[in-house]
Every structure is written in C-alpha cells, then in structure tokens.
C-alpha cells in the first residue's frame, strides 16, 4: 500500500486537477529564466560579452525567486486549502492514509509540480548560455542557483503550510500566512524604528536584534537574505539559519497538520493555545508603535501624555481586533480581561525599558571575544574628510553612485581601527559615559565588527580627552594609522594638486597650492613622517591641513564617469619635519613671526560679551594659544564659550565688532587672562 501510494501512477492520478499549476509555473519559469536571459544577453555590450553563466545566474535568481515564491504559495494553497472545509476534510481524512503520510505525499506532489518546470527551463537557459558562449562553470553555477531556489521554495512552502494548518477558516488562514511571512520583517523594522526613536547612540542602521529578527524570523526575508548576503562573511550563518528555519517550519507544519483537530474547522485558529501567544506577539509591538506615533505627532509640551495615550489606545484597539478575529464575534471584543491586563503590564514594561534604556542599549558594547575589530567614523571630529566617488553596477555597466553623496557617503567614511585591550577599555568607558548627566562633547561613529558578520554601529558622544585616548590606543594598535593614511598612497599617482593651510596662521589668505610633481614629492615625505610619527604626535596640535585633489581619474577604469573626483584632507603636525622643511622651501612657514603679531587686532568673546585685547604681551600669549575654530580637531580641548576674532590692522571704527577669522583657544596653551575671564564669568553665573 505504501509503495503504491507513492507510485508514479498514484502521483499521476493525484496530479489531476493540478495541471494548471504546472502550466502556470512553466510560463513563470520561462519568463524568469530563458526570456530574462535572452533579454540580458541580447544587449551586446562588452561587459555582457564577458559574462560567465554564474554572472547570468546572479541576474536570474531574483525573477526565479519570485516564481519560486508563487510556486510555494500556490502549491501550499492547492494542497491544504481543503482544511477550511468540513466536507473536504471528511473526504480526505476518511481515506485509509495516515495524516503523516498524507502530509509528505502532498509535499512531494508540490515539489514535483515545482521541480518539473524549473528543471526544464533551467536546462533551456543553460543551452542558450552555451550557444551564446557564456557557458563557463555551467554546472556549478546552475547547481548553486538550483539549490538556492530549492531552499527558498521549501522555506516558503512549509511556512505557508504551517500558516494554513493552524488556521480554521479562510480569514484566519490569510492572516496567519501574512503573519508567518511578514511578522519577522515587520517586527524588525518596528524594532529598528523604536531603536532610532528611543536610543541616542543608534545610527539609523538596521542592526543587531532588529536585523536578526528581520532576516531569520521569516521564510521570505531569509530567502531574500540568501541573495543580499551572498558573498559576505556571514553568508554561511544565513545558510545555516535558513536550514534551521526550514527544519523548524517543516516540523511545526508537520505537527500542526497531523495533530490538527478536524472538528475545529470553522474557528479562527484550531489550536486554542496559539491565540494568547498571537495576542502578545501582535499587541505589544503594535501598542509601542502607536504610542511612539502619538508621541511624535503630539504637541511638544505634552509629549509624554500623548505617548501614554497612544500606548493605551494601541493596546486596547489591537486587543479588541484580535479578540473579534479569534471568536469571529464582535460581542467578544472585551473577552478575557485578564489577558488585557497582562498585555497592559507587558506594554508598560516594554515602554519603560525603551524610555529608560533598561537593557543598556546605549551603554553596552559587544564582548571583546565576539568582536573582531572596530571601524571609526572620524568625519565629525575635524576636517580630515574624504570624498571618493562610489561605483555601482547597474544594468551591466558601472555608474557613479549619486545616492552615495546624497546620503553623506554611507554615513561617512568608516576606517578600520583594529582591536586591542586598550581600545576596548576606552570604548567601554565611552559607552558607559553615554547615559551620564554630564554627557557632552563630539560625536563619533563606532562600528563593532563582530566575528559573526553582524556588525553593531553606535554614535557616541565623547569628550576631547576620551577621543584622544581612543585615537591614541588605535594608533598604538596600528590598523587605524595604516588605513587612515593609505588613502594618500592610493591617490599618489592620480593627484592633481594639493593645498596646504596653516591652522594657527592669523591671515586667512595664507595658503599654498602645490602642483602635481610637488604634490607627489610632498606625499613621499609625508609618508615617511607618518611612518615615524608616534601615537601621541598624531593626536597632538596640528599646525596645518593639507587637501589632496585627484581630479578626473577616469582612466583608472573605463566605466568611471569623467567628472569623478576624490578629495582627501589630512592634518599636518609640527613633528612632520620633512614635510615642513619641504613646505618651507616652497616659501611656506607654519611658525608665526612674533613681530607680526602686533599687526593684528584681537577680540575675545565670552558669554556674548566682546572685549578687545590691546596688551602686546597678552596678544602674543593669545596668538600662541589659537587654533582655527572650524578646523580644530575634536581631540583637542578648547575653552568652551570663548571665541577669538582676529583681523589684520583694525579698520573698524570704535564700538563696531571686529570682522575677522574666528579662532578657538586651546586649553593646553590658554593664557592666564583668558582663564580669569572664564572664572569670573562662571562665578557671576
């Protein structure tokens, strides 16, 4: 009997009525594979001419996934839709077959309906590739694509079967299918938004729990992740996660089907214990979302009130909706009041956790054992910025990624900084500083590169001293130094010109531009100086800043647009002897001439009060402590609230404020009279 049920004849007999699926999938895969392939390689550019079959497959996998998804849903519905009809259940379940075998019989039948058109169309695709000369690594690429799609199909199929097996009627079936497919991604997005709203250190990236929930908690998103994470370090985790999810879904679907009480057909969910679970799974996140929405749209002066109102409203409304769905009766809207109470408590606790960061989101960092290294975003700590054109492949050709500039270059440039005990200790201290009341300073981006490949990114506020210690630890470790300055070497050949500006020179006109050959010479010398520079020297007071321009480096790659350019800024420190000597030879000095200082007028502003400095000694002292406000690196501590304006030969009439360049006062070199001004001001406050 067993062998007979699984026999080809049995299969043929039971496939009656499913021919339309076969035809539908044949058409679907024909469009997804051979037609899409012909459209792709019909465009005879050089790029496409060089494509291997593996590259073609990378384009075909997406339409293939869409048809696979269609196949999984259609097959699951075709085989298990009967569960919503008592008459059909009586018909099928009275047959002399155990539910267990019925389940696998249906799964195999669905798989056959999927595989037959798939294999036929994939073979045609391979034949076309061979005929057009794109056939290298044919079998490997086709096999890989097949296995990926097969895993996707099984995930989506068993997910759909699980959804149908737990539901008792069509409405609940559709809802549970949406739940199985979309709960993970929706919850992940919600968590991501909540993290952005409630945790200050969040950088707006979907990472950590939000990312994992999004990827691993849904057969759809893990199928998509099989593509998006392809080639990444953590791809194997996605594969393992996909296989584990497949096992979980298959086992759950099997149990839900074989243990399904047939008499519960017509109710919303055939397993009563699922209802409270679903209630908590849906109501808590929904209430938090509604609460946050109300907090955002509510008036600023009573934001907390609106937030609480939204939380309560979200809890009650979603609780009511679900109770109505469960009971299929509007009168049951307020049934199970104990559950409502428990939900209220859970929502309140979750809201409190978000509000107070009870989970330590802002102050916790990944353990060192799990961290491979860190990357730093140093874009905001001074003017050492980097602008590079980013390339993207689109329709088989490279294009300048405009979005890169629009988005601020993927939230700025990240520089690998390695990891050491010292770096980790400083980061721990920085993280614990985040929720302290006195937390203020400069923002830096820190990306913890986890061994798992699922990185964690935070935006920390750091004091100048903490930043200095962090950079020192990173320079000591070495990775940051290598990565930060390697970019100069990258553009050495393509440099167009370099400009150098002094950071303590009082005259803003005083800058130098070096032509290509001098620029290259400067880069050679700079390289030597950087190699010899100690970590302490690299976090010292810079005396100048260079800006490298590598314009039009299109010849590096024929596909790069001609208007592409790169711009790299780097500080020059007083210990860069070779560099400074070279610049001096070019008529450029970083040391201010004392006799010139008297030619300038100085105006100190503190607490909106402006005062002129007239004493020549004070002028000299002050001039030594100045650094241009805008270019001042954040690791240098400056006197907060004190701003100095400097202008050559005051031309303003008495009583008018000085119109000059703005400087900050370095605390390390702060003149006594400035200290007194600040102290007096503080005492008065």
């Amino acid at each position, binding site marked *: *009997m067993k062998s*007979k*049920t699984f026999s080809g*004849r*049995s299969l043929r*007999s*039971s496939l*009656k*009525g499913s021919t339309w699926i076969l035809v539908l999938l044949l058409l679907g895969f024909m469009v997804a594979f051979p037609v899409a392939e012909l459209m792709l390689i019909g465009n005879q550019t050089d790029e496409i001419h060089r494509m291997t079959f593996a590259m073609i497959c990378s384009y075909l996998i997406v339409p293939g996934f869409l048809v696979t998804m269609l196949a999984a849903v259609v097959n699951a519905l075709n085989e298990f839709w009967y569960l919503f*009809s*008592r*008459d*059909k*259940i*009586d*018909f099928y*379940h*009275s*047959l*002399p*077959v*155990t*539910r*267990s*075998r019925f389940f696998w019989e249906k799964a195999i039948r669905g798989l056959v309906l999927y595989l037959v058109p798939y294999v036929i169309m994939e073979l045609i695709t391979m034949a076309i590739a061979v005929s057009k000369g794109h056939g290298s690594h044919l079998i490997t690429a086709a096999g890989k694509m097949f296995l990926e799609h097969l895993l996707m199909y099984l995930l989506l199929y068993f997910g759909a079967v699980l959804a149908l097996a737990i539901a008792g009627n069509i409405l609940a079936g559709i809802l549970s299918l949406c739940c199985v497919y979309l709960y993970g991604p929706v919850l992940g997005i919600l968590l991501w938004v909540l993290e952005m709203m409630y945790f200050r250190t969040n950088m707006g990236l979907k990472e950590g729990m939000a990312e994992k929930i999004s990827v691993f908690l849904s057969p759809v998103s893990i199928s998509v992740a099989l593509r998006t994470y392809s080639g990444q370090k953590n791809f194997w985790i996605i594969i393992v996660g996909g296989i584990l999810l497949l096992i979980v879904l298959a086992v759950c679907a099997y149990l839900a089907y074989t243990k399904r*009480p*047939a*008499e519960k057909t017509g109710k919303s969910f055939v397993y009563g214990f699922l209802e409270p679970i679903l209630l908590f799974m849906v109501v808590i996140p929904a209430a938090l979302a509604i609460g946050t929405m109300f907090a955002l749209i509510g008036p600023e002066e009573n934001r907390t009130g609106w937030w609480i109102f939204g939380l309560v409203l979200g809890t009650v409304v979603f609780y009511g909706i679900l109770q109505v769905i469960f009971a299929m009766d509007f009168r049951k809207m307020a049934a199970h009041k104990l559950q409502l109470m428990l939900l209220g408590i859970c929502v309140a606790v979750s809201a409190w956790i978000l509000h107070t960061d009870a989970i330590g989101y802002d102050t916790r960092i990944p353990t060192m054992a799990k961290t491979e290294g860190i990357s730093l975003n140093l874009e905001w700590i001074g003017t050492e910025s980097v602008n590079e054109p980013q390339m993207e492949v689109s329709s088989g050709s490279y294009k300048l990624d405009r979005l890169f500039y629009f988005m601020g270059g993927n939230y700025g440039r990240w520089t690998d900084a390695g990891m050491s005990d010292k770096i980790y200790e400083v980061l721990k201290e920085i993280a614990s500083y985040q929720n302290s009341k006195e937390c203020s300073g400069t923002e830096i981006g820190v990306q913890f590169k986890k061994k798992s490949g699922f990185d964690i990114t935070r935006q920390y506020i750091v004091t100048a001293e903490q930043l200095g210690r962090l950079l020192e630890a990173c320079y000591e470790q070495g990775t940051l130094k290598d990565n930060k300055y390697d970019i100069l070497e990258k553009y050495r050949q393509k440099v167009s010109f370099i400009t150098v500006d002094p950071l303590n020179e009082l005259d803003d006109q005083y800058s130098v531009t070096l032509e290509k050959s001098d620029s290259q010479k400067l880069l050679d010398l700079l390289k030597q100086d950087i190699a010899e520079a100690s970590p302490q020297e690299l976090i010292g007071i810079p005396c100048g800043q260079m800006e490298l321009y590598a314009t039009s480096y299109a010849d590096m790659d024929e596909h790069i647009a001609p208007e592409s350019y790169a711009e790299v800024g780097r500080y020059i420190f007083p210990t860069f002897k070779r560099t400074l000597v070279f610049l001096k030879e070019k008529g450029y000095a970083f040391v201010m001439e004392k006799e010139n200082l008297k030619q300038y007028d100085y105006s100190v502003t503190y607490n909106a009060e402006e005062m002129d400095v007239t004493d020549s000694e004070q002028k000299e002292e002050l001039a030594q402590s100045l650094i241009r406000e805008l270019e001042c690196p954040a690791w240098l501590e400056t006197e907060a609230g004190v701003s100095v304006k400097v202008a050559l030969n005051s031309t303003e009439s008495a009583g008018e404020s000085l119109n000059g360049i703005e400087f900050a006062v370095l605390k390390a070199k702060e003149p006594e009279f400035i200290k007194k001004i600040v102290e007096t001001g503080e005492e008065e406050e």
Partner: protein
Amino acid sequence: MIEIRNCSKAFGEIHAIDHVLMEIGERQIFGLVGTNGAGKSTLLRMAAGVIKPDEGEILVDQEPVYENEKIKQQIFYISDGGYFPQGYTAADLKDFYREYYPDFMTDRYSKLMDQFHLDEKRRISSYSKGMKKQLLVIMGISAGTKYLLCDETFDGLDPVMRQAVKSLFVSEIMNRDFTPVIASHNMRELEDVCDHVGFLHKGGILLSRELEDMKFHIHKIQCVLPDQTKEEALLKELDVLKKEHQGSLLILTARGTREEILQKVQTQNPIFCEVIPLTLEEIFISETEVAGYEVKNIFW
C-alpha cells in the same frame, strides 16, 4: 464488528457525544437514528477516523480506527456533504479510490455504473444531487470495504432508488462480509432498509436493537375501560411510555409483546381493546419523549 466504547466528544461546551456505548454487528444494515444535533454525524466521523474521541475508543475488528491505515482500508465513509474533487469525472474518482482501497472492485464498479445509468465520463459537478448520492454508494460498494458508513445518504434518493440501494446492500451482505451503517433522521427511509437500529439522543444512545425485535417489544394500545379504577390498575400493570385520552378512548404506548400486553388489558375487562404495532417513527418519538424530547417541551 464496530465497538463504540464509552466514547465522548465535545465541541467547546457542547457535548456532541456523551459516553456512548454501542456495538454494530457484522453483516446487517445498521440504522443510526437521532434527533437533530444528536451526534449521529459526529459518531460516524469518529467511526471513520476523521475525528478523534475525547474519551473512550472506537474499535473496528478489535483495533482502534483513528490513524490506522489497515483498519481504515475496511471502512468507506460517505459524508453528509458529499465532496468531490474539482473537475473529477466518475472515472477519475474511481482511479483515485483505487489508489487508496486495495480491494477496489473495478468490474463491480463498471457493472453498477451501468445498472444505475451513470455516465463515468461526465463531470461529477454536472450530476444531480441524487446521482451524486448514487455514485457515492457505488464507490462505497466497489471499494470492497467491510464497513460502509453513510451519513444521510438516502436523503435525496427517490423511493425506487432507495429500494435499489437496499437491494444492493442486501445482495452485498449475502455475497461478502459487508456491514452498512446508515445515519438518518428520516425514520421512514430507514424503516424498510435497516435490520438493526440505534437511537441517539443528546449525544447518548437511547436504544439499540433489531428493528423487528424493537417493533415486537413496543406497541400501541387503544382501549375503552369500564371505569377509572380499571384504568389506574392497567397503567400500573403496563410499562407505559405514553398515555393519551380521546374521549373515553384510552391510547397507550407501552413496552411488551403483543401477547403480554393483550393479557394484561384483558384482565381489566375492557369494553373495547386493540393492540397495534408501532412504526419506527412512532417508536422513536415515544422513546425520545421518555427522554424529555417532546414537541411541547420544545415550544412551551
């Protein structure tokens, strides 16, 4: 033999089947009758292995039926709804059942299809309600199973077809090990078909007996007695299920054989006396009235 051992099944707060204890013997036509919602379909669905009892067990030939492939090969269940897969012809359905019932008799199927004038190449969806019922009976008989469970199958069959099906059942019983179980609330349909009848009421079994035996042991008495004391004495003598007066005519429904009842009535010197056998419907009404299921209890 189908043994229903202390079976219970509840749907939420409704006890569809409540500790039913019953046996269905072999090679007889068993009629399962009951009031609306008495649990006939639930009992058959449990016997067919579609649903599982909450309590107790159902044994078919000494083996539990639920999830038992071997035993279910001996049971063919015709449900009340009578579902057919989309687009199937009778021939498709035959092929379908052949895969599941190893003893399926293709020759018998062809012969019966001819006898009932059913076109096996026509889509079942184009059949009339009665034709669909006939087809299901043909499939049930051709499946070669030992037990055929029919839920309201005779509903929709004309008297001629009903008689034809009855003859079919009888001939099957004569020729092989075959036991049809027919659930219905239509007593008239069952009366001329069944050998044995089980009364189901409010989830419990009221009575299960051979139909002839049942009719042998319950009678209607119409008599006129000389005075009230005689009537009271007669009522004490008899196992009365129902009592009614039409002027001086006393109408009683009582348990007992015709002879026993006549003897007891004669002792009261009746002016007029007549003992009439009951129809199945009357027996059912009497028994259910005893169990509190009366028209007056429903409306008043």
